[in-house]
């Protein structure tokens, strides 16, 4: 296959960026999208040009590192698929493909297609955990958990933190990401103790990071490679409302 790529190139966080056109020649349909970019980069290196910077690591759809907007859609629009698991057999010979980074105020571009998603880490640091230290925990089977709850918690916990939800949202809202963690922990008895404080702290941090509001358009769910359901946002809203009513238990957990 031969393709034309229009790729966002940006030297660093401070410089302005622009779209640059490249040819991707002799692409094999069995290649993954990132392997196609590898081929283009080898060509650039051979010509002494700087390769296109893009993030990836596991290349099997689980680490959440890859983060490309392909033809205007985060991860390229194949249901439940990260960019690294998207294969070229889904494209047509001769096609033009645009490739851009996540675009959101809270995810500044560092270079080309690489963005800074540190805001997600800071949201988890604000409360996305159960406050247990290592050691002294009860036997794992001491507390039965209904299979439905545990399965539902797992559905939420499957989030890979890639940020596609933010990139897809016209308001750059992080609600799907936050709701996944809040729901995962609130559904399990181990996470219930701190549920009020947790949701308040996480939402507060989310707002501080400058993410937008949720207007329930569902574009986040549509691009989510782990198909995290919009229902979790409804659950987040309920959790948040309840926590506001009940009030915080003290502002931050103390050590």
């Amino acid at each position, binding site marked *: 296959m031969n393709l034309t790529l229009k790729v966002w190139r940006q030297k660093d966080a401070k410089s302005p960026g622009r779209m640059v056109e490249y040819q991707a020649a002799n692409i094999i349909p069995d290649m993954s999208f990132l392997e196609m970019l590898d081929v283009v980069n*080898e060509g650039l290196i051979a010509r002494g040009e700087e390769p296109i910077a893009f993030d990836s*690591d596991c290349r099997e759809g689980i680490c959440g*590192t890859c983060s490309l907007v392909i033809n205007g859609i985060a991860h390229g629009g194949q249901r439940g698929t990260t960019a690294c698991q998207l*294969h070229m057999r889904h494209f047509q010979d001769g096609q033009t493909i645009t490739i851009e980074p996540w675009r959101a105020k809270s995810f500044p571009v560092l270079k080309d297609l690489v963005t800074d998603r540190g805001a997600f*880490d800071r949201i988890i640091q604000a409360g996305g955990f159960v406050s247990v230290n290592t050691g002294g*925990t009860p036997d794992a089977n001491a507390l*039965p958990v209904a299979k439905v709850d545990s399965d539902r*918690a797992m559905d939420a916990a499957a989030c*890979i933190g890639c940020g596609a939800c933010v990139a897809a949202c016209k308001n750059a809202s992080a609600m799907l990401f936050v709701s996944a963690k809040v729901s995962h922990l609130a559904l399990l008895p*181990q996470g219930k103790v701190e549920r009020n404080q947790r949701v308040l702290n996480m939402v507060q941090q989310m707002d501080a990071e400058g993410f937008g509001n949720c207007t329930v358009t569902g574009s986040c769910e549509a691009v989510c490679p782990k198909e995290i359901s919009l229902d979790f946002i409804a659950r987040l809203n309920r959790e948040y409302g309840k926590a506001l009513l009940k009030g915080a238990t003290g502002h931050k957990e103390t050590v």
Partner: protein
Amino acid sequence: MKLDSNIPSGPLAQKWDKHKFEMKLVNPANKRKFDVIVVGSGLAGASAAATMAELGYRVKCFCFQDSPRRAHSIAAQGGINAAKNYANDGDSIYRLFYDTIKGGDFRSREANVYRLAQVSVNIIDQCVAQGVPFAREYGGLLTNRSFGGAQVSRTFYARGQTGQQLLLGAYQALCRQIGHGNVKMYPRTEMLELVVVDGQAKGIIARDLVTGEISAHAGDAVVLATGGYGNVFYLSTNAKGCNVTATWRAYKKGAAFANPCYTQIHPTCIPVSGDHQSKLTLMSESLRNDGRVWAPKKKGDTRPANQIPEDERDYLLERKYPSFGNLAPRDISSRAAKEVCDEGRGVGPGGLGVYLDFADAIKRLSLETVKERYGNLFEMYEKITGEDAYQTPMRIYPAVHYTMGGTWVDYNLMSSLPGLFVIGEANFSDHGANRLGASALMQGLADGYFILPYTIGNYFASQKPAKANVSHPEFKKALEDAGALTKRLLSINGKRSVTSFHRELGKLMWEKCGMARSTESLKEALARIPELRSEFWKNVKVTGETGSLNQDLEAAGRVADFLEFAELLCLDALTREESCGGHFRVEHQYPDGEAKRDDEHFAFVSAWEYQGPGKPPVLNKEPLTYEEVHMSTRSYK
């Protein structure tokens, strides 16, 4: 070099408790005075950093990904072992210990493995308390599955995403400590050098991968939790970024490297489809619970799988190893697949594959159940190959997956360099010559949550918190060295890309030092690697500059280290004149093709000691003595 494993005296089952009692403690107020540098945020690094911060130490944690949550541990699919005996099928600490020793082909340390089995039960408790959503039964209790090399069900799992859930548990514990200000996290930062002051590890030199700035970090101890070196083969199931840099540069500063030739080839991976491939994808071993491995009996049989009648199929593992069947350990299953492909009975492109068939399981259990158990793996298979494995059997082939070798450590997980601790896949300690499935996650978390936090205290208790200063000449020198290396890489400006060197090295390693190794093939590799390395330093082309985000430069540094490390791996393989576990020397096999171990001459750990550039390394031997188990010939028949 004097290697002292520091194994406590006394009966095996009591060693760890006794040691815990005898170790010196650091009082809580003094813990605050000690700085610990943790390189790596996978299961081992994140659990260690979080736990040490909880104890009161001041921790700095580094990783090269943009977030600690993305460490390669995230990719583990199948599960984690623990001797809980929840299945009531006769499991016990002793049985997990014995299975691991036997699975490792009697090349690991008894005392370490026993301790691992002991703390395995605490890991599951810890993870559940953190909110890890392990799979459960309808009654609400945890459920288990079976993994290779065991006849009991002791593997805990979270769908096909066990590593992800365990890592998120450890990551969240780490985040909690970052939030409290007890851990300072450095994502997108790569360790380039270890700093040794007066014979003790006192810090690191690291490069900020965004700004390119190279900086020095001092501490009272350094912990490497930097994962395995499987990417020396270029194609492996490891993430693209996995590398040997941290442990290799520590080796060059005096930390012995143990058993580099013990590499694990996983039997069930998606076969290579072409030269463009950048990595291989694992299909979890858990699939062998229900999938049956077979190949056509006839050579060159090109009929589609469903047109090959039952009596013309060879269910190779069930035939060769009736008591373990499709759950034979990895090294054995991999070789069995290679054997039939070498005979010309392989399937798929190039004849490099065997079938993993679920037709019987679907009949026995229903399509729904198979979907529930393995749905995400079938989807992944479909994405990569475009084939529906519910309809036609999967094609699988062995691929490099895990590395048992690593930095030599004693019972306290301290390397031969005082103050340098190494945990997780980066060390060599518990898996001998072959790791059993679902035991790496167990080891990483055992090291990080339950072992290192104690043993590091014992080290500190005999030290003064003498804050090494980054203005010390050793730091200055290491800073200069690291800067000079990056500059040198950028200045070569040759004709070949970094990847082309990596790919060539990987191919060489796979062919000459992969599933089967011979004196001849290893000598060929040992002749070729230095040539390739010298070509690299003359002709590599690294683009861009040092003062900014430069992925080409990052890769170049890693490949430069692989090009040195590969030689040690082959040398180790050549020196070990026996077959054991993942190390198969064609000269050493029984007439039926089974591995021939030589306990009389090779029951030792090979710990290699660096002697300086261009000088051959020295081989130190740590004898392996078995007080409790009898070294038997491993049989899974």
